């Protein structure tokens, strides 16, 4: 990880600008990568609003909110780490990197407890899936209607998709919700793990003072990646946790 200027670049500035543009182009591919799941989520939520409300109510909103706050703090500490690298303050970089790693691990820990809760409650999509329909959000005695105008659910007018669900359509469509829940938060958690790995990898060069005003591309790159993963969670949180909470 040569801190000096690579042979094919003419100046530090060209190297820094190239690195930054490279990371941003990579983040655009990540936008499209998560975009596929977001498209599926938006589509199935408009098709099966009741199931998504029922599914969302199985999530612990307090844990979700706390996790969001943890991730926002980690964004701050990451930004401070990049700032310290720009100023070449060795101990500050290491300190803020450690803080970010700690916050990231906290987030993953909380995520693990939520997954365990889903496992215990038989909410993993598949044969073992069973949604306890007893205390579903009911509104004056009938299932809460979605907050989406049914007009969007174009298909239900002429011939509803004949979801031949194992037990009832609610059980089936809620499985869809949880498949997307585990898909999106799982992929996000995987990116968090990679992020924490990158942060740990930065610790040793930071402590050796390799980063200064001229060459802090690696810290800035990991920083951009970390903020991107935070932004994904900023959108995941309302979409997954805050669905039809006003029951």
């Amino acid at each position, binding site marked *: 990880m040569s801190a000096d200027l*690579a*042979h*094919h*670049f003419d100046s530090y500035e*060209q190297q820094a*600008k*190239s690195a930054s*543009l*490279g990371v941003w*182009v*990579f983040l*655009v*591919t*990540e*936008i*499209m*990568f*998560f*975009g*596929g*799941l977001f*498209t*599926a989520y938006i*589509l*199935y939520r408009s*098709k*099966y609003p009741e*199931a998504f409300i029922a599914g969302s109510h199985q999530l612990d909103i307090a844990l979700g909110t706390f996790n969001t706050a943890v991730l926002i703090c980690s964004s701050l500490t990451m930004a401070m780490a990049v700032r310290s690298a720009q100023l070449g303050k060795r101990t500050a970089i290491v300190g803020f990197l450690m803080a970010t790693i700690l916050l990231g691990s906290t987030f993953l820990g909380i995520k693990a407890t939520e997954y365990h809760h889903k496992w215990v409650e038989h909410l993993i*999509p*598949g*044969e073992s*899936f069973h949604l306890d329909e007893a205390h579903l959000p009911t509104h004056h005695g009938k299932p809460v209607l979605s907050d989406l105008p049914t007009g969007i659910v*174009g298909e239900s007018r002429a011939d509803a*998709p*004949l*979801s*031949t*669900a*194992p037990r009832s*359509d609610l059980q*089936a*469509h809620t*499985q*869809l919700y949880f*498949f*997307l829940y585990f*898909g999106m938060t799982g*992929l996000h958690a995987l990116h968090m793990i990679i992020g924490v790995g990158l942060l740990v990898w930065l610790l040793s060069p930071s402590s050796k003072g390799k980063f200064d005003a001229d060459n802090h591309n690696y810290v800035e790159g990991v920083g951009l990646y970390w903020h991107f993963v935070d932004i994904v969670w900023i959108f995941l949180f309302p979409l997954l946790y805050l669905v039809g909470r006003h029951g």
Partner: protein
Amino acid sequence: MSTQTEFVIPVEEAPEPGDHYLNHTFGLASWLLTKDHKRIAILYLISISFFFVLGGLMAVLIRLELTTPEGDLVQPDIYNRLFTMHGVLMIFFFLIPAIPGVLGNFLIPLMIGAKDLAFPKINLLSWYIYVIGGLFTFYALVSGGVDTGWTFYAPLSTTFTSTHVMAVALGIFIAGFSSILTGLNFVVTIHRMRAPGMTWSRLPLFVWAHYATSIIQILGTPVIAITILLLAAERLFHVGIFDPKVGGDPVLFQHFFWFYSHPAVYIMILPSMGVVSELIAAFARKKVFGYHFVAFSSIAIAVLGFLVWAHHMFVAGISVYAAAVFSVLSMLVAIPSAIKVFNWTTTLYKGSISWETPMLYALGFIGLFTIGGLTGVMLATLGIDLHVHDTYFIVAHFHYIMVGGAIMGYMGGLHYWWPKITGKLYPKFWSTVSALIIFVGFNVTFFPQFILGYLGMPRRYHTYPAEFQVLNVMSSAGATVLGLGYLIPAIYLIWSMRYGKDASDNPWGAVGLEWETSSPPPVENFETPPVVTWEAYEYHESTAMHSLAPSSRGSYRVG
């Protein structure tokens, strides 16, 4: 074809074999651990050629099978695996990486006057990722292959097949990242590493085309990655968002699949368009007519390419209104291609046209791509697609674009830059003959398939009604000629590496930074960092003379 011998620029004495990227270091490690974009291009050339031969063998088997209506050569499921793997290998492991991997890697730094790509280590990583993806797919192939078609439609691919879908899906997933990294590398290089004076309007059109291709690779490939992950998850957990049993919609898989796979066909054709622009300019000795139109039409194709995917799904149960929207947008995406064809043809007017082999391939490309493109407009027409969707009309259309267009462009580019890559000239007679054989063989193979398609013969049929046999036999005959046609260049190009005449720095007398350095170029590409003072494709009587003389080492066009 040309009776009068073509003028090969007399080379008084071959330039003394200076130090260049091929003889700078030796040994396996110097190749497998190289960070030199030129060597990585050679690595790509070898690996994609391997997959091209593999895919080509399957094509021959398919055509042999289809010579008889009953399907006597292989069992139905073997045939299904043949056409599936033919599709997967040819598309994901040959057409998509071919020109960007080989010609793009080698030439973009040279053409913009840079020492190397922006991220050399990532460039090598993208080759290794490509090889790993290829190995997974090869493993799946030798252990039984896949029988879902290269499109992997759910629910067949998710629940109703027990073949090696996971292995091939993983192979494509991994190879996708190689495509992303190449695209990323090119975009950053083109933005950040152009030589002084190399403004955007002086960029060679080859570079413009690769810039557009990279945009598609960056924005499209991640979507096939997530689609494959969803497919794999559904196969693993027996539940997923495409499963009708839990309310999922199999048509959604088609939306996600084609969101990438249609722009992917532009990934395959745009680089060839870039090559053809270079060839037309070099062998007509003239500026390309309407340079800015041709350049921006590449970008227009990249952008509009993302809006049209559902023209693959007109009969798949999507709403008629959505079909109408996608049909209009598909008509718009045909316009930039028309601009390119008209501009190329007009460039030939009052040119100084030489009939060298690369030019034959370029002119063949324009003709066949016009037929391919216009049949594409017919398929985008809702009324016609209703009848010919999933028939051999579609097979003929995309082979006219892929084989008649992309591979012709690739062959033309390979011949044109062969002297620069290897420092050797290829035999002129055999290259002209093989170009004509390929042109004839191609047309005899795929033109009958248009007729078969309108007759209603469906795609991917192992047996077919007897009345389609005559046209199928014609097509199979053409396929053998085409197969032979491809063998000849393979032979004489490899032969030329050792026995070919040495090439001067600029054997074609063309304008372009890559011709300003030695053939093959030194490791650092240029002795002295070049400064660009001339417009794109600026041919003058004087420059023509000037660039012909065998160059001393390095660039003599200073300041």
